């Protein structure tokens, strides 16, 4: 396939079509609107339904319906819109419906700014909605991955009957890079959901029912335990991460998404200066690569987590390393993006102050 120059939002939209998306329901919001606009143009011509919903609340519930019908469907939004979807996501997770969600994050809280941010990490991985549920969360860091993770996302969703979230940000959504769409055989990846989907009663069968209501606590508890088992399976099987120059590292950066690219640059700069720095980039935020982090905690003498927020993933890193090494945090907020030299500065601070650093 030839390379194309595309915005992240558009690459994601194009990949969704190539992954066989049958329904898209969304609402405009900067900086994800190109995704919606692209699909409004392309999807109806290429075999799917596009609908601009009256709100994000409506959009996520349309997804609930269409996913319940057993079709590949998705929505996308940005931070405030994602907050409005939380009730719906909790329903979808409980009813175990496969679908793809996209949050192209911007700076918050509140109306905030439309510039890129990673302030919705907690919302994404701890469950912004009520109750105990989890979404597999994929965090791309390039336009290429904005496209690739769509296929993976849909497949994971179908495999586990669970909504999957692509957690991106305004910069990844807006920027153009070269992208190559992998071959993907829609038919080969099709999963037959007719056993549970509400598509009209199958001949000779009882009706299918989708619900998240179990008024009897013991039944609801069983549902919770079933969900937890599924999430444990996902944790056992689907952890994805990238290691960069970790083999001999004595200090580790941890960063996801856009910040991982900046961190990568800092690692290169630091290596040039002779520091043995590595980078661990979680690709799945749930399931979180705790295992590798715990391993690396046995090797490095400290970790620095870089995020575009006030410190969210750093908690998961600390949970993973269980006190073995100090874990520090450097972040920028509100649309500001960490700069490689500022990170380098933090790294140098660490090396000069190493002895003074207490276990955190």
């Amino acid at each position: 396939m030839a390379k194309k120059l595309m915005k992240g939002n558009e690459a994601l939209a194009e990949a969704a079509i190539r992954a066989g998306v049958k329904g898209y329901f969304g609402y405009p919001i900067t900086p994800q609107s190109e995704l919606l606009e692209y699909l409004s143009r392309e999807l109806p011509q290429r075999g799917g339904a596009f609908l601009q919903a009256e709100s994000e609340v409506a959009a996520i519930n349309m997804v609930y319906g269409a996913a319940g019908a057993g079709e590949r469907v998705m929505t996308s939004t940005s931070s405030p819109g994602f907050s409005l979807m939380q009730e719906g996501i909790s329903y979808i997770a409980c009813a175990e419906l496969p679908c793809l969600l996209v949050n192209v994050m911007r700076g918050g809280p509140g109306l905030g700014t439309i510039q890129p941010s990673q302030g919705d990490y907690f919302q994404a991985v701890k469950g912004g909605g009520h109750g105990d549920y989890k979404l597999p969360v994929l965090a791309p860091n390039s336009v290429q991955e904005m496209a690739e993770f769509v296929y993976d996302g849909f497949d994971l969703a179908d495999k586990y009957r669970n909504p999957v979230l692509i957690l991106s940000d305004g910069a990844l959504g807006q920027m153009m890079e070269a992208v190559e769409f992998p071959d993907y055989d829609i038919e080969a990846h099709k999963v037959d959901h007719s056993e549970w989907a509400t598509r009209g009663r199958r001949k000779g069968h009882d009706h299918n029912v989708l619900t998240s209501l179990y008024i009897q606590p013991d039944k609801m508890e069983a549902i919770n335990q079933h969900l937890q088992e599924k999430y444990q399976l996902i944790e056992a099987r689907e952890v994805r991460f990238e290691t960069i120059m970790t083999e001999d590292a004595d200090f580790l950066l941890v960063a996801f998404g856009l910040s991982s690219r900046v961190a990568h640059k800092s690692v290169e700069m630091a290596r040039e200066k002779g520091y043995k720095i590595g980078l661990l980039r979680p690709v799945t935020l749930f399931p979180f690569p705790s295992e590798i982090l715990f391993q690396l905690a046995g090797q490095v003498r400290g970790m620095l987590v870089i995020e575009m927020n006030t410190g969210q993933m750093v908690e998961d890193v600390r949970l993973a390393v269980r006190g073995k090494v100090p874990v520090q945090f450097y972040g920028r907020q509100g649309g500001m993006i960490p700069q490689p030299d500022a990170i380098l500065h933090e790294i140098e601070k660490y090396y000069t102050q190493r002895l003074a650093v207490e276990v955190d």
Partner: protein
Amino acid sequence: MAQLFPENLDDPYLYLAGDESHKCELIEEMNQVWRRPDSLIDTPMHYCPGCGHSVAHRLLMEVVEELDIVERTVGIAPVGCAVFAYNYLNVDMQEAAHGRAPAVATGIKRVLPDRILFTYQGDGDLAAIGTAETIHAVNRGEKMVIIFINNGIYGMTGGQMAPTTLEGAKTSTTIFGRDTSVHGHPLRIAEMIAPLPGAYYVTRQAVNTAKHVRKTKKALLNAFQYQIDGANGTCFVEIVSNCPSGWKMTPLESNELLEDEIFQFYKLGDLKLPGKE
């Protein structure tokens, strides 16, 4: 009259529960002129005695059977007393979040346009939290049947005021009666949406008398038939119903209230017929 009042039973009426040995001669399948529709699952419903929800459920199943669309129909019942509708209606069903049934149904219809969709919503659901979803589904002319059970109250949660509650009515959040200057006015949703071009058929019915039940069935038959025929718009069937528990009265009293007061405000009849403005 032996068959009607068999003397050998302690309770002369009990035989009617199906004791084969005491059947009236008419009790033969060929003489059956009405029986519970097969698609209404054979289990007691959770509704309070005399609640109109149950009648509406039954009619719905009669209609999908008569139109032979049991296997093409998907229903959405959001939260409200009818949230358990899926326990009774033997068509594919999705439970929906409070107020969002029209959005859920839209999602399904857009990806499976040949299915027959209906939502089944209470008035708290459709006329309060779900106002936007309702209006926009109708305004888009989503090809579905919206069944709107207007009982003027939040039944499920214990009798709070609904947007549809009549002026002066006492509910658990308006214990001195609904005061329109504070709590707002009773909302006639059907009147509001009927003028929308996306609304294809809008009617207001009731199920408190046999006559009304028959009319409602007719209305439902029409609505589903329009959808089957690919009508370019939404069919909206309001059923003004009772809620004996929420209204704190007996079923008979609740039906009287319907006739005496509520139908004065919520006038029964068609608000929009296909082809007519």
